[in-house]
């Protein structure tokens, strides 16, 4: 039976409306993506442009000449960019190792053992989720000073670890709780000690959780400014965010306005985060869903 022309007209109209809507959604998505990506790209591009192109009016959109000058010049800034970057790397490593180690142990303890005062201790370790660290930063400074940990990267990392622990323990407890108990029971019968069990049997099973908390520990230590500003006083101990903040508050450090150098240090600071997020984003999302990895 032939389709009535009227009906066909209605179909095409509906189809057109759907395409129009889809086109509109795509348009909005593309505009938004451009808005989010442009500043990142502009920083990257500027970091490899010679000063003459950066300062031209209007500036060139894409560099006519590529240069690494902006990066090599950063060695002359303060104690040198290598120093600041290694400060950040070292602090991040301390933070990741400390957070993973402590959270894994505690997560296992809270998920699998019954001991006296367990609930009280669990509330105690989660308390900082409700009390922001900014509220105790100053007394914490006095504590660090008493322990001679102020103005050290290790002391700063300890603050970061403490800030990361509630999240880390919460995630690891959830992840341990999803491991079937039969696996442990079989190992227990073989006479496995709890620590050996954790190391040999459980560790491979909770690896996704460990990646997740390591990832958050990295981002939060690599990007943190406030505590670094308060606890680090020697400029050769500065981490990258502190260097970047100083570039603005004390432009003399970069030898006056040095746009190429500034954008090169922005790039050094952000590229590790961008790459790590792009490759490990499912672990990041799992951190927001309480530890479940899809």
């Amino acid at each position, binding site marked *: 039976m032939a389709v009535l022309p009227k009906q066909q007209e209605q179909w095409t109209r509906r189809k057109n409306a759907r395409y129009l809507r889809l086109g509109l959604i795509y348009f909005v998505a593309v505009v938004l993506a451009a*808005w989010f990506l442009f500043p990142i790209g502009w920083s990257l591009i500027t970091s490899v442009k010679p000063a003459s192109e950066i300062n031209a009016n209007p500036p060139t959109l894409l560099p006519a000449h590529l240069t690494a000058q902006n990066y090599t010049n950063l060695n002359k800034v303060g104690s040198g960019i290598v120093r600041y970057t290694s400060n950040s790397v070292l602090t991040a490593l301390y933070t990741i190792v400390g957070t993973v*180690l402590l959270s894994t142990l505690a997560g*296992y303890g809270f998920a699998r053992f019954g*001991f006296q005062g367990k609930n009280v201790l669990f509330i105690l370790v989660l308390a900082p989720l*409700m009390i922001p660290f900014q509220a105790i930063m100053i*007394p914490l400074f*006095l504590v660090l000073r008493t322990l001679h940990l102020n103005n050290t990267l290790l002391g700063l990392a300890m603050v970061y670890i403490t800030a990361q622990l509630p999240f880390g323990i919460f995630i690891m407890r959830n992840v341990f709780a999803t491991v079937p108990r039969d696996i442990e029971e079989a190992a227990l019968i073989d006479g496995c000690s709890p620590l050996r069990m954790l190391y040999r049997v459980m560790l491979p099973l909770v690896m996704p959780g460990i990646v997740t908390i390591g990832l958050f520990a990295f981002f939060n230590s690599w990007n943190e400014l406030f505590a670094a500003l308060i606890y680090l006083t020697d400029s050769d101990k500065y981490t990258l965010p502190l260097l970047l903040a100083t570039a603005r508050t004390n432009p003399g450090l970069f030898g006056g306005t040095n746009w190429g150098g500034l954008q090169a240090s922005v790039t050094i600071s952000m590229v590790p985060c*961008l790459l790590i997020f792009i490759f490990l984003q499912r672990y990041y999302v799992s951190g927001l869903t309480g530890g479940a990895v899809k």
Partner: protein
Amino acid sequence: MATLSPTIERPKAHSTTTLSKQRAGLFFVLPSVLFMAVFFMVPAVMALWVSLHNWPLFGPHKFIGLTNYTNLLKDPQFWGSLGFTTFYAVIVTPPIFLLGFGMALLANSGLRGVRFFRTAFFLPNVISFGAVCLMWYFMLNDQIGIINVTLRRLSLLHSSLIWLANYNTAMFAIIILVVWKAAGGTMLLLLIGLQAIPHDLYQAASVDGADSWDQLRFITLPLLKRTFALALVLSVTGSYLAFDQFYILTQGGPQGRTITMVYWIVKNAFISFKVGYATAISMVLLLILVVLNAGQLYLLRDSE
């Protein structure tokens, strides 16, 4: 009697294994508890104590009772920073939420290439405020900054605009920057909430003749309430603790009009060395956050 011995022995053996298990559990938890005690509980209790003292950064301190708190109430700069922080939180939250929600709907729509868009929207979230501020500081430059250059090209601006020198334009720039950085985080939280809503609900609704607007109103929004509450608490808390962007970009200016509470705490403690006074401000900030968060959770609670 000999037949009884196994039944007596068995619970005994059982209790020793649970006992060793108990001790093991405490042993696993102890390092974290110790860390938390030294670097969190001690400073938290100290905070209350320090706030009752005239406590300079160096040298001896003196107990002064509630004087810091009464001085606080008379300090116009305290009220100024509280007012500004509140204003900032109120003005920055709606755009972050509107954009974040819109992007979450978009990222949940099953559009082709949705993974790319989701990643692009979220990327600024993983960059430090230090880097974000310097990135935008360059773009906002009055002479060669791409924003001014573009606006001049489009004849929307006749002369260069020095964005950060004027309160209104500085605030506008900072809000754009913060929305740029933070909207992706709200999107991701809301997206996770959206994906937890069972698909059958939408199918059933569309069989019953509900259009997409009805579905949004009667399914998505009510079921997203808890996620909204969480995202709102995180966002408002973050705004009340704002520091980096004002420290780096405006440095509290122009005319000291963009000093947030955290900024004001830092200034008191490490520039004026008034540690006791600064700690009293932190206690007030803490109280405000507790009240605000409790209020938001109460308003957005599940009705049943």
